[in-house]
């Protein structure tokens, strides 16, 4: 992005909808989305040109990703459409090992000549870098799969749904919010289709078609006299699904103090509820700071899992590859090797998963041609594993990569990114109502809010969307200005109860950021409602 745009674009973020920023793409006619792109046979020929050119220049390994990335964003506020953007980005990224060092180059000029030149550039970059002496790259062995393919199992391709239908839905959402008494409403539908072709000198030719969808809104209500305002955003999720996500069935609704959503989402119902919540929030009393037992809904807890469990178990962070940016991790190798590092209470079981249907992280193969799977990270409270890619697997004694490699586009180099990381539901039957019954002094938090965590993932602070005070086993009413602070290990050891699998739901984000230059990764995190005892809550109200 041109630097000129930065302040201008981000100015829209205040008080409006914080939308993820996408890598880049060129605006196109939506009819382009119905076109399948270039034929898989042509892709194979182009890939072979790149692989051969790299080998001819001295690469000992090469992989090529031919990517076509389609994005559609429809954004609205109140009664008008703000923007309809249809973008397409098409190009090739080539990664090589030469002289034991990585090199990468990319081009959007997808001809045999230009692809070959890019491969040669990648080798030249690797050779330039090899002058800085280091240990040669060690890749975990990977069998070639031959010609294979994988598709997100969608029912309705979002890109085939007319833009008018999306605009109509969003404007009806806005209308419902305004009728509900809010002053402002922003809403959006974001859709992504990654058409990725991967080939490597190991003999894999992998064609994948990946779909993601994110419907969202934010409502604002203002009390003019006091100048105070409150917001409430959507409780829907970004998902690895098609447009069917927006057709909620009765079984998708989790009723309770606020309706939340399981596999599908009723945006219209949620915005009506949001209008009521935001009104209540304006009137709600400010929290008394102190220690509380927290009951965290999956619509909130996904973000705490993301920051405090998923990031610190990234092996590149543990090893120091992220030290200059996102940081390192408190989950050092010695803690893992001991086999008894007590990450959380015995109830805490966390699984890494690249297969979960409907999740953002679900793919058949990662971006270095490794078939995806599932594995334990935390077992009965103990740290048992990390998330690794091919050039790291040997460091933790693995014979194969765990398939965690991802690049946000063809123009970015792939590196270790988190899979879906989810807290497993409680093994014994337990409902949320029964969980709340036992809480004497607590806060029930729904929806994700502000978040911040240190560079080794010890100390964190989270807000939320709506907060209810629990007194003597009963919900006493809404409160506001709540944020909780804790140390990761102490927090997960204070985990006292997890609702059973009937309450299990996913949350997630399109824009998990990491790396230099920064890249976005889409990832989901599942959980059931969970109780944490004696957590420090602060009051965030200030006056300026």
């Amino acid at each position: 992005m041109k630097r000129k745009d930065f302040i201008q674009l981000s100015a829209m973020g205040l008080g409006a909808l914080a939308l993820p920023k996408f890598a880049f793409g060129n605006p196109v006619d939506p009819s382009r989305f119905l076109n399948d792109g270039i034929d898989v046979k042509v892709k194979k020929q182009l890939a072979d040109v790149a692989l051969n050119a790299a080998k001819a220049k001295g690469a000992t390994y090469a992989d090529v990703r031919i990517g076509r990335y389609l994005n559609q964003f429809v954004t609205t506020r109140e009664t008008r459409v703000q923007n309809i953007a249809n973008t397409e980005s098409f190009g090739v990224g080539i990664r090589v090992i030469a002289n034991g060092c990585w090199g990468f180059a990319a081009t959007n000029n997808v001809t045999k000549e230009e692809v070959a030149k890019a491969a040669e550039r990648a080798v030249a970059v690797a050779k330039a870098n090899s002058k800085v002496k280091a240990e040669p790259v060690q890749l975990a062995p990977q069998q070639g799969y031959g010609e294979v393919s994988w598709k997100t199992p969608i029912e309705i391709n979002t890109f085939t749904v007319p833009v008018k239908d999306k605009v109509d839905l969003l404007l009806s959402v806005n209308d419902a919010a305004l009728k509900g008494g809010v002053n402002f409403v922003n809403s959006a539908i974001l859709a992504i289709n990654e058409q990725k072709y991967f080939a490597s000198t190991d003999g894999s030719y992998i064609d994948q078609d990946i779909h993601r969808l994110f419907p969202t809104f934010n409502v604002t209500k203002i009390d003019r006299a006091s100048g105070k305002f409150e917001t409430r955003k959507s409780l829907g999720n970004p998902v690895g699904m098609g447009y069917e996500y927006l057709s909620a069935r009765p079984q998708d609704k989790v009723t309770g103090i606020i309706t939340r959503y399981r596999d599908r989402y009723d945006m219209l119902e949620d915005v009506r509820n949001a209008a009521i919540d935001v009104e209540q929030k304006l009137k709600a009393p400010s929290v008394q700071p102190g220690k509380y037992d927290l009951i965290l809904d999956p619509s909130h807890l996904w973000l705490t899992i993301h920051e405090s469990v998923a990031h610190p178990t990234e092996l590149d962070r543990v090893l120091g590859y992220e030290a200059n940016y996102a940081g390192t991790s408190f989950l050092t190798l010695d803690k893992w090797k001991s086999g008894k590092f007590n990450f959380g209470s015995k109830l805490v079981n966390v699984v890494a998963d690249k297969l979960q249907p409907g999740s953002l992280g679900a793919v058949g193969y990662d971006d270095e041609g490794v078939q995806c799977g599932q594995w334990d990270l935390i077992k009965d409270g103990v740290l048992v594993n990390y998330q690794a890619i091919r050039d790291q697997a040997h460091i933790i004694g693995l014979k194969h990569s765990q398939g965690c490699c991802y690049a946000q586009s063809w123009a970015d180099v792939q590196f270790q990114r988190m899979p879906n990381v989810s807290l497993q539901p409680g093994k014994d039957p337990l409902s949320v109502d029964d969980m709340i019954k036992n809480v004497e002094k607590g806060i029930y938090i729904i929806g994700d809010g502000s978040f911040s965590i240190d560079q080794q993932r010890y100390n964190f602070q989270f807000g939320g969307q709506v907060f209810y005070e629990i007194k003597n086993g009963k919900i006493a009413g809404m409160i506001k200005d709540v944020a909780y602070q804790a140390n990761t290990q102490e927090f997960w050891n204070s985990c006292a109860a997890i609702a059973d699998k009937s309450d299990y739901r996913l949350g997630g984000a399109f824009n998990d950021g990491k790396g230099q230059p920064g890249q976005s990764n889409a990832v989901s995190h599942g959980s059931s409602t969970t109780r944490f005892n004696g957590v420090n809550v602060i009051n965030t109200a200030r006056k300026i």
Partner: protein
Amino acid sequence: MAILNKEAAKALMQKVLSFSKADECEVNLRGSDGGNIRYARNAISTAGDISTLTLSVTSSFGKRSGTATINEFTDDALKRVVQRAEELAKLAPENPEYMPLNGPADFKDAPTFIEATAKITPDDRAEAVAKSINVAKEAKLEAAGFIENNTSFDAIMNSKGLFAYDTDTNVVFTITTRNAAGTGSGFAARGFNDVRKLDTDAATRIAAMKANSSADAKAIEPGKYTVILEPVAATYMLENMFRGLDARSADEGRSFMSKPGGGNRIGEQLMDEKVTIYSDPYHPDLPASTWNRDGLPVNKTTWIDKGMVKNLAYSRFWAQKKGVQAVSMPTNIIMEGGSASLEELIKSTEKGILVSRLWYIRMVDQQTLLLTGLTRDGTFYIENGKIKHPIKNLRFNESPVIMLNNVEALGKTERSISIESYRSYLIPPMKIRDFTFTSLSDAV
């Protein structure tokens, strides 16, 4: 070649406009060439090289607009992209906030392009990184860093005769050094238009000094402290505020710039008198773009004048609605400083904390701009004018607006970068009283 000079860009865009049949048409041409190296554990981890060139055309019929883009430049491709933009415009809903395009204006150049930066090769980058790694190895530390250079140009032309072009070069360097025991960490960040100003050896020495002096930190009780924020810490904190210098969200009642009872805070004394913040694309130490996406010239604008809110940005639509002149969002930010050096700020402090860098700042409350985040890579306790010992990192909950009300003293303004956006700013080190720390962190 992705970088077109002014004449070549102009000729290409004139040709595109000649194909337009719309009521109004605007053409935008942008290109960039760049490369980067990322290193960690004293070795290069990833490196890349990328160039892009994109033409986009926005056609409008009445209040309906459509945009199409292409990266092929044959006459046929240019005709096709114009045609597609016109088709999309006819299908689009009317935009009630549509503003007719601006006519020509006199756009002056700022010295944003430096030949030496444009000429950086992969070998130059590798050499700059090798210097940094050598410093770290000599200091028995582990280096992780990133260097990225970019040359770009940006041009707009429209059917009302407006044409604007600029080109710039940038190089950004960040370095973290850590000791083997994991008990000390130091950081430095640099951003320049001119690569000749970048010394990766010297920057790494500063990071190494911080790593060694921050080892074995002691814990102190969280609470309110006088802090001295180094420019890289202050920049990151204030960047969150600069994004809110917008009249519309203020007038709508949903920004820290909203006035209770309605309207915005222009004219209000919101901060300490020592605080003056302005933008000036012609500033020699921070040249920036002299025009914006609306096709408006960007001129020197004072946002905060001795603590008083002087201006907020007005888009052309909002300006028309409010009956005022449009004011462009800034393309750079400069905060006036004082005359004290960092050492003098420390010397004048009886009890306080020196903050080298802040990390993971996120908005807690938009209303008050309350932010949370942590110190990182060198936090030191000051007693009787001297650095006493390193302290463990702390989480803060503080609003930059409150912080700029509590200014004790400002040091000399210097060029610094935001560690989140990598944008460059001119910001002084600042001494702030009653800065609120709310918890301790074990992170190094």
